[in-house]
């Protein structure tokens, strides 16, 4: 169903006619397709298109109403998921480095010794997101952008093969966005699979080779240039353009069977 543009050969995540929603009402339905290992996929669509629901559905925070999600041997606990509005209690009195270290939870558990090499790994993650100087700050003292950097540091430490990000660059400054986009690039180099819900189409075109356009259902899925066409975007926004604006996109769509 999807070609492996990112060089992956095996699927990391497969949907089979999957629908997700809340209280029995689907927010997104009929999702069919696979994300290949090592693929960096942008999930785009208008507000209310079901982007967040799709990500929540993967980790079980939104109900799967029908169909199937296959993580190919991974368990939900092996994934890293960064929600758009994390339920984080920013008033809880722990420092940035302590917070980042919770990313080691899956590896250390309740009793694993926090060794010097773990300490070094946490410090390295903080340095990568540009927070080295703030490691002793309480999380309540960080700005929104710094908190997002800290969440990326924790995600780095989770060392997850499949990373789900829900609008990770919303409400942060340009410098932070550029740095965090660099982290996504690092994950791509490391061969991790990343699915990120995004709304900035210019950013998607520049940094994400693959895209999935949704609007309550899949509108288009494939190489970004073929997905983000005027025709597809119009359909995602509920306006049908009579003749397809871009014949190449039309062909791609036909190939994807996403009509």
């Amino acid at each position: 169903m999807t070609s492996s543009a990112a060089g992956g050969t095996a699927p990391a995540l497969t949907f089979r006619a999957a629908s997700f929603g809340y209280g029995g009402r689907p927010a997104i339905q009929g999702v069919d397709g696979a994300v290949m290992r090592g693929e960096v996929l942008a999930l785009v669509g208008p507000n209310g298109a079901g982007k967040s629901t799709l990500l929540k559905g993967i980790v079980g925070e939104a109900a799967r109403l029908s169909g199937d999600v296959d993580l190919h041997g991974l368990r939900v606990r092996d994934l890293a998921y960064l929600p758009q509005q994390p339920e984080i209690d920013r008033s809880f009195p722990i420092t940035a480095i302590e917070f980042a270290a919770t990313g080691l939870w899956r590896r250390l558990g309740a009793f694993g010794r926090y060794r010097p090499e773990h300490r070094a790994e946490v410090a390295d993650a903080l340095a990568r997101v540009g927070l080295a100087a703030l490691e002793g700050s309480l999380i309540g003292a960080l700005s929104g952008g710094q908190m997002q950097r800290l969440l990326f540091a924790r995600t780095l430490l989770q060392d997850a093969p499949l990373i789900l990000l829900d609008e990770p660059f919303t409400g942060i400054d340009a410098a932070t966005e550029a740095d965090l986009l660099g982290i996504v690039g690092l994950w791509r180099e490391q061969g991790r699979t990343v699915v990120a819900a995004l709304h900035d189409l210019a950013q998607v075109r520049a940094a994400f080779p693959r895209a999935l356009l949704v609007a309550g259902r899949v509108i288009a899925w494939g190489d970004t240039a073929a997905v983000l066409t005027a025709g597809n975007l119009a359909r995602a926004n509920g306006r049908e353009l009579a003749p397809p604006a871009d014949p190449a996109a039309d062909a791609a769509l036909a190939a994807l069977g996403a009509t």
Partner: protein
Amino acid sequence: MTEFLLGPFIEFAFMRRALMGCLALSLSAPPIGVFLTLRRMSLMSDAMSHAILPGAAIGFLVSGLSLPAMTIGGLAAGLAVALLSGVVTRATLLKEDASLAAFYLVSIALGVLLVSLRGSSIDLLHILFGTVLALDDAALVLIGAISATTLVWLALAYRPLVIECVDPLFLRLSGRASTVTHLSFLAVVVLNLVGGFQALGTLLAVGIMLLPAVIARFWAATLSGLLPVAVGAAALSSYAGLLLAYHRDLPPGPAIVLTAGVIYAVSILFGRQGGLAWRIRRA
């Protein structure tokens, strides 16, 4: 001066027992209180301490002012309410404090009613406000065991408990630790309330848990600072409260909790973290 400060404890065994019992409680209840306040569950612990009352009252109805019967009754009732409310919170949209608020009044009404069926108003006073000056061996062993259990549990559950407080979703998606942590936390709260109930009664047991925790918020900024400050504040309140009760012939339970109240008032005024005096000076 030494006579004033130490005399009562050297002279009277019941004062030493009271001090030991209170110090054991001071080691375990305040750290639990710190987590309760940080999770905004202060009200919940209060409601839970009331939930213990009808259980203890049933024990009293069955076998009078007997420690094992009232402890088992209190423990059973407290755990039942804690686990039930935990399940209700996880299974429904109702917030924890809302699901517990209902238990609050029902429990105390039921408890007082049950005690009145058989006991005198003196018995009722004992159950409501404790008998810290009459702790026998069994009660001391019980309090010590509860304190030790709590400290071991804290050591085991510290990491998941912290993650559960800061980012519950993160822990929930990371495996089964979330539910285990939450339910065992509620159980430890009940254990400490039952321990405190022996000394301070059902109404004040929560005092040695919560007041030291809120005092600590005025003196320490990090979790690793809050825990020792809360333990210290509880120990100081226990000692000073017992001394005050002895010298002034006051009821010891209220004296201990009021001493903590005075330390709280001083902390509001002069605490390094957001105390009023510092705010005014900075302004």
